[in-house]
């Protein structure tokens, strides 16, 4: 019932610009943030509990859990100790953020380059017609995106070079495919929303029947 009322209210508020409907989005976003902030305590406690259990029980790979607990406590204590300005440049929290958190995140992100290479290697093998099409399209897009592509086709008139072909592939076949997916997603979202609002779909609230 609550889901239905809130869902219908949101649908209606999209079409009614009058107060209070035009404020619904902001109000619900505020409430969601408040609930989210409260729920983070549950998440953090769960993480600490599971890690502590591993450390105390000396379970396999308990060292990682010890690092989690120590890191968690360190950043939390420093954050609270430095008060409201904990994110200001020059604070210990900021030092940890800039010199530990950002490099660690950047390291994970940079691994993506290697994964793209290995995934591309598998994806671009010409196993069948579709895969061959993908391989050919990918070749032209990649070569059209680098300066050497236009150097190779420099003798061709503008509009017929590799960069133009790459742009054409991206602007037409690629955009058409992506839009088809987006239309499907839009309909899927409406359909799922309707199922949730009508109470047909209740698995997400722990009640399949």
């Amino acid at each position: 019932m609550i889901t239905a009322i809130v869902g219908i209210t949101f649908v209606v508020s999209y079409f009614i610009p009058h107060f209070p409907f035009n404020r619904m989005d902001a109000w619900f976003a505020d409430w969601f943030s408040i609930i989210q902030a409260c729920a983070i305590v549950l998440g953090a406690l769960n993480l600490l509990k599971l890690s502590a259990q591993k450390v105390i029980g000396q379970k396999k790979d308990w060292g990682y859990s010890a690092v989690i607990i120590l890191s968690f406590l360190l950043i939390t204590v420093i954050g609270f100790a430095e008060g409201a300005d904990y994110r200001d440049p020059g604070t210990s929290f900021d030092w940890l953020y800039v010199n530990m958190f950002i490099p660690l995140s950047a390291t994970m992100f940079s691994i993506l380059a290697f994964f793209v290479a290995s995934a591309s290697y598998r994806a671009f093998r010409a196993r069948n017609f579709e895969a061959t099409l993908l391989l050919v399209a990918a070749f032209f897009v990649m070569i059209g995106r680098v300066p050497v592509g236009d150097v190779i086709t420099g003798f061709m008139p503008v509009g017929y070079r590799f960069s133009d072909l790459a742009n054409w592939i991206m602007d037409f076949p690629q955009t058409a495919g992506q839009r088809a997916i987006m239309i499907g997603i839009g309909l899927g979202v409406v359909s799922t929303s309707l199922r949730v609002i009508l109470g047909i779909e209740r698995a997400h609230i722990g009640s399949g029947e």
Partner: protein
Amino acid sequence: MTAPADTLATVDSSAILHTPAPPTNVAAEDTPNDGGGAITVTWSPSPDDHEGGKVKGYKIIRAEYDDGKPGEFKEVGDVPAGKTEYSNEDGNTTDGILYLYMVTAFNRMYDEAGSLLEYSSDSEQSDPVTSSAQWFNMTRINVLAGVVLLSFFIIYFIQQAKAGKDLYIRRIAGMEAVDEAVGRATEMGKKIFYITGLGDMDNMQTIASMTILGRVAELAAEYETYLDVPVCRSLVMVTGREVVKEAYSKVGRPDSFKPDQVHYLTDDQFGYAAAVDGMFVREEPATIFYMGQFFAESLILAETGNSIGAIQIAGTAMPAQLPFFVAACDYTLIGEELFAASSYLSKEPKLLGSLKGQDVGKGIILVALIIGVVLESFGIWQLSNLFMVK
């Protein structure tokens, strides 16, 4: 005309030359289809508003109008030359109060001494106007019609399904493989990982993911295979626990459920990716599901899963991540299939009926697209305009 007092004497002779003609037909009206607090001003451009002309822009001047008398005029905004409309979309008018508007065409230049000179001419005043809120946004009537039509078909087919009518739903390979994937983990005596992505519970993809999680948890409970659900949002953890608990109860194994099966890691994108990757490598699960909203971490996770030889089924409505999942996973639910998956898995007539309604909606859009393309090719654009959303 306005110019710095100390320069007036020297520039007076050139003032007539540089002052633009004022705009005409200034009209102000309540901005339609809004929540109030906004007025739209329109005008006919100054005759000097053209390429190389004297007009550099227009200033919008406003005064409150009380007891039949205008108050002090103050500048409330400006627009560049060529524009003939201004709307205070930041909502800085008060509903119910009358306002008068004037539009000033201005020209700016530097004199020989480097001083900035401005020449301007004011339009006539507009009629008094007030802003107000509307109860329906007429620009969205096409969306309303679309929602009503789609809802009608969905509800119609749900009713048909309830009445026992057999509905054909095309096969979704990724969903057909769920049983096989869970069975494989059981045979190998290894874990199943279910990754819900970065979305929170306000995201429709996460809600769809939760419904699929319920079906996967039922199978895992039935086969007595450990299901591990590391999440990166606390609310998803709370919801996921309820879903998994319910699934275990449904198949008569409530005692097998452990709340810590669904556990929180971190809200940080790459921290989460690192933690999950570590778990994959250390625990070598037989099966991994990725269902929900994914960003750059999608390939980091899926390639790691691929490297340990796990059977992987992914589903997301993030078009940019789909190629990565297609490349690295055994099966991928593309876009709408993610939202259809829970209905497909449950085989409940009511849910399948909604899928059928969704397909009819897709058919209507397809027909409209084909007709629209043909009409646009002949320069007839009215049909395309019907689908425009402001």
